Each structure stands twice: as C-alpha cells, then as structure tokens.
C-alpha cells in the first residue's frame, strides 16, 4: 500500500539558524530531488524550501525505511547532526500529510496567515519536481488538488483580505480617504526603512509626485533620487503642506516636526482638501491634536499597529472557515486515492460494463417483441459475453501489473480511459 509522507520543519518547530542550514544552498532542492529519485524506497518526491519552511513530500511503500533515509539525508544536506535535527522536525502520514500540504498551499500554516507568496513557492517546487520527473500520478494529483484548495480558500474566504503590514495598512487607509491615489502628492519627512516602504507602496498605487524633506539636505537629495522626487529643505515643510495630500513622517526629532498651528494655517490655502498624516516616528513627529481638524486624518505607529492587529484577528476568523474547505478536499482526495488499487478498479470496471448491458437490454426489449424466457436468456448471455470479452484483457493487464512500481500510472490511465470517475471536476 502506497503511503503519502511528509517530513519537514517550519517557523514554529525550528529556529531560524536551523532552517538556514538547509535553505541556503541554491542547489539543495535539485540535490534532494535526485536523492529521492535514486532512492529505492521512495516512489515519488517533492522538495519545498522557503525561508520559513523546509519540507520533503514523498510516497513510499516502506514507510519506516523511507522516513529514516529521508531524515538522514536532510541532516547531511544541512550538515547538522541528526540528534539536534530530530526535535525540530514534524512528520505526517497518509491523510494527515494531505491535509498538511493543503493547509500549506492555502497559506493556513504560514507565519503571516493568508500571505500569498507560499502558493507560488509551492508551484515552483512542483514544477521542479515535474521537470526532474520525481513526481508521479499521486503527487501530480495531490499538488493539483492543493492548488485548487488554495484557489478556493482565496476566493471563498477573506483570508488574504485586509493588510497586515504597517505600510500596506497605511496604503489601505489612504484609499479609504482619497479613493484613488492617482495624481496625489506625497511629502516624505525624514527617512527610514518603513517610511520608504510606505512611499513605495503608495507609488505602486498611482502616486506620482513625492517631495522629500530632511534635516540634512544631502540626505533628502539621496532619498528623492530613489523615488524621482523633489528634495526640499526642512524650512519648506510649511509651504509643502499646502500642496501635499499624504504626509509620511519618520524623523528622529524629539519634538514635533509638524504642529497644530502649522496645519491649521495651511487648511485655508488647501481649500479643505483632505490631508492624511502617517506618523511612523517614535517619539511622534506630528502633534496628535491635529486629528481633530476637519478633513485632516492622523495615524501614528500605534494606530497602525492597532489596525493590523484587527486585521490579523479577522484573518484568524477566516482561517477557521478555510479549515473546513481543506477538510472537505482531503476527503475528496482520499476517495480518489482509495480507487487507485487493482481490486476497486476492476470492480468498478465490471460495474460499469454491467450497467451498460442492462441499459442496452432495456432499450431493445420493446423492439424485440414477445420472447420466450429461453430466448431472453440467450440474448442476455450474448450481450454479457461480448462485454466481458472486451474488458477481459484490460483486467488481466492490470492484474499483471499488481505490485509493479508503475501500477499507479496504469490504474490512473485505466480509470480515465473507461471514465470510471464520473466526477468531471476531478479529472481536470
């Protein structure tokens, strides 16, 4: 009986130092795939390596043997002794492994639940396995189902909905205020990684004009170059306030860089256009009272963190719904897998033949007119023996392949040729 196994570690089970050991080398995935291909006990294999997880997925008939070999290979690959390696590993078998890989693809097992990159990484890993010819009937099917699950989860739940990073949260807020960011002007005061990231995201949403202010003008020029923006001196902030729509501040200044009076004075000239302050600095750069002004909105770093926490909680809620989609798909996959052995395939082939015989006899009875019981039996026997002769050779062939490594592929082919899985969606 073929089993699906996975062995791996993720951000929860293993510290980053350990994950690094396995993930750093660029050729490690190919190496792992060729190891799986050459290994007798492993039939099909796939190797996934991202910054948050390293995982081997394979099918085998000798579970213990294959698992032992895989672990020792992985520890050798990372250059880590097995003893320190084992506690960081998790391993699932059968439907648990299926459930796990579905959850991973649907981004339910990610550090940031719902983040979209993991699906792409899994697709890459699968493409590599397909190229190296280590994936076969079962893994092909499993991975396609995993992609399908991921798609369902994404469209049917709001798991990837709300922003969970500071800079994205800021962009979403800006959109709730301005609707469209095309043609909006951004003023960036001070420089910092997060502020620059926010500015970059805003530009990605259509913001075209960025002014950069800094205490040291040289630094302003440097940063402005990054965004093809306009460097301005600190003294010009007041006049820039009448122009800008979105102001991002992140200076190290201990005092307020933007004061209530300054903003209030600019409002008249702005003709009440909305003004959105994103204050990422600690201590804060923008005087908090300005949030009370009409058409002025201020979010500081704590506010943004609050938004993110809320969104995170929302994602967790959605993850529960996603969980049930995963379980549903696991059952579907299990049903398919069960059909993938000789006896059930032959049984369903015979059933199909019998149902055809019955249907055709029924259709012909009216045309044949009155028949004696003997004649009826002759016709039935005739129909049955024709059908049985036709399916006899395929059945013998499948029986002959029992126990061979290529059996799964033939079973799959037979099921498709005779269309034994009525479920169209499953044969995609």
């Amino acid at each position, binding site marked *: 009986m073929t089993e699906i196994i996975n062995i791996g570690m993720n951000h929860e089970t293993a510290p980053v130092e350990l994950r690094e050991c396995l993930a750093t080398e660029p050729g490690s995935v190919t190496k792992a795939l060729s190891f799986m291909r050459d290994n007798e006990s492993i039939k099909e294999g796939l190797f996934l390596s991202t910054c948050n997880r390293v995982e081997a997925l394979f099918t085998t008939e000798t579970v213990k043997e294959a698992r032992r070999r895989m672990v020792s290979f992985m520890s050798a690959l990372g250059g880590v002794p097995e003893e320190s390696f084992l506690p960081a590993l998790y391993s699932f078998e059968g439907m648990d492994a299926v459930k796990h890989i579905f959850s991973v693809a649907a981004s339910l097992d990610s550090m940031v639940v719902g983040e979209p990159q993991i699906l792409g990484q899994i697709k890459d890993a699968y493409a590599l396995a397909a190229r190296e010819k280590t994936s076969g009937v079962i893994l092909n099917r499993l991975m396609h189902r995993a992609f399908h699950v991921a798609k369902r989860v994404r469209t049917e739940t709001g798991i990837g909905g*709300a922003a969970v990073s500071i800079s994205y949260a800021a962009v979403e*807020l800006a*959109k*709730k*205020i*301005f*609707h*469209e960011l095309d043609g909006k002007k951004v003023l960036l005061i001070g420089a910092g990684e997060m502020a620059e990231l926010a500015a970059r995201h805003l530009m990605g949403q259509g913001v075209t004009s960025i002014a950069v202010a800094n205490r040291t003008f040289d630094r302003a020029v440097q940063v402005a170059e990054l965004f093809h923006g306009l460097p301005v001196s600190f003294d010009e902030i007041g006049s820039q306030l009448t122009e800008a729509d979105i102001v991002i501040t992140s200076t190290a200044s201990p005092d307020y860089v933007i004061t209530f009076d300054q903003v209030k004075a600019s409002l008249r000239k702005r*003709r*009440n*256009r*909305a003004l959105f302050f994103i204050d990422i600095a600690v201590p804060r750069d923008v005087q908090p009272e300005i*949030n009370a002004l*009409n*058409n002025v*909105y201020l*979010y500081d770093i704590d*506010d943004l963190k*609050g*938004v993110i926490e*809320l969104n995170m909680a929302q994602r967790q809620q959605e993850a529960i719904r996603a969980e049930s989609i995963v379980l549903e798909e696991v059952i579907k996959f299990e049903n398919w897998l069960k059909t993938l052995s000789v006896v059930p395939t032959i049984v369903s082939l015979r059933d199909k033949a019998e149902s055809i015989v019955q249907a055709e006899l029924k259709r012909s009875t009216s045309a044949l007119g009155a028949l004696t019981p003997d004649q009826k039996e002759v016709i039935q026997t005739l129909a049955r023996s024709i059908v049985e002769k036709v399916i006899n050779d395929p059945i013998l062939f499948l029986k002959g392949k029992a126990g061979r490594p290529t059996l799964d592929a033939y079973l799959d082919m037979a099921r498709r040729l005779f269309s034994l899985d009525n479920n169209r969606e499953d044969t995609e």
Partner: protein
Amino acid sequence: MSFLWFNLALFFELLATGGFIIYIIKQQTQVFKWSNRILLAGLIFHTIFLCHRYYSLGTAPVLDFKSALSFFAWCILCAYFVLQLRFKLMVLGSFVAPFSAFLMIVSYAMPWMEGPVKPIFKSLWLTIHVGTIFMGNGLFAIAFLSAIMYLIQERHIKRKRLGSFYNRLPSLATLDGINHYSIVYGFPFLTVGMITGSIYAQSALGTYWQWDPKEVWSLISWLFYAALLHQRVAAGWQGRRAAIMSIICFCILIFTFVGASFWLGGYHSFSEMGTRSPP
C-alpha cells in the same frame, strides 16, 4: 386596479430592502444583484401605478399626502438608479431602499381618498411644477443619505475604529462625490420647480407669489441649498462640513414638505386641495 399596482410596488420594494439589509451584513455580490433587480421591478410597478393614477385622476397623483409620499419614494428610487449608473456603489442601495420603503409604508398606512379633482389642478403646469420639485427632492434625499454615510465613515476613520462599517462603506472621497453630484443636479430641479410653480400660480390664481407658508419655506430651503452649493463650488467646502450642511438643508426641506402641508395652512396644504379632507 391602482391599489394592486401600489401593493405590488410596496411588496417588491420591501423585499428589496430586506435583500439590501442582508447584503450589507453578508457582503455577497449576488445578494446585491438580486436586491437591485427586485428594487427595479418595484420601481417599474411603482411607475405603472403612477401612470394609472395619472389617467384615472386626470392629473399628477400628488394631491394628498399619501400620494405625495409615494411619489417622493418613486423620485428617490429614480435618482438612485440614475446615480448608480455613474457611481456603481453597491452599498448605497442599503441606505436608499430602506428610506424609500419607509416612505412607502407611511403612505400605505394612510387611507385612500377618492373624490372629484378640482378643475384648477388639471393643468400640465401642476405636473411640471411638482415633478421637478420632487426630482430635486429625490436627489437631495440621496445627498442626505450619502452625507450620513460620510459622517459614519469619517467617524470610524477619525476614531481609528476600523470595524464592520469601515469595511462596508466606500471611501470618503466617493461619498463626498455623490453628495456633491446630487446637490449640483438637484438644485436646478428645485429652481425650475419653483419657477414653474409661480407661473402656474399666475395662470391659475392670478398672482406669482403670495407668501403662502409653503412658498416661504421653499424659498428658505432653496436659499440654504444655494448657500451650500455656493460654499462647495466657490469656497471649496467638502467633507464633514458639507455633509452636515446638506443634512440640515434636507431637514428644512422635509419640514417644508410635511410641516407646511399640515400645520401652517395656506393653499398648498393638502386639506385645501379638493373637496375631500384628510383625517
């Protein structure tokens, strides 16, 4: 016969209201689509009702409070579908449908009054006068609703409580845009309605203006809307202040519609119209 059309319109509008309430909770596009279709069906029945009434009375069916309310509801729905062409804002229906359904329920609760229509009301001027005024009122109602939505959304953003309404309501700029648009287009309707009203008064009563309470209050609402429009266009008012102002304007407008018709007397009051008298 016209009762049947009225009841059908009421039924579909109530059904759509239920759908729109489910939509704002569940956020499913399918629910919106069906609610919108049902609302459109309600509007069609409503239109048939109005046409039927028009022909059986020989004039616009606006001579008693019951009919005027249903006509108001009809105008709001028309304004909604026209604005929807431009803004395609699904959540707007969740505010408009309950509002017009409310007017319809009030209208439903009032008794039918049958009786001869005074010849003075059988004039095309009446139809134009009332039609344009109510079209303006319909647009102002949408402006009012979008102002409320604006204030809710603004409050959420200012207080940093980004809960359920925050997700369901559109951006501030969109809501402000709808408010602006409805007032810009509603105002000419109100103006034309008042001018045609005075022409009608001249031809029917021999005087353009006679300081009837409803005339005075209409003038006050008109001045308020004119002020709002001026501030918006010339002084760049937008957002919160414009939203509050358009709510105030709408309250005055509603007072003109309800108060001046019932309590202040004058030839515009429904009790003066026709031989019948309301309860």
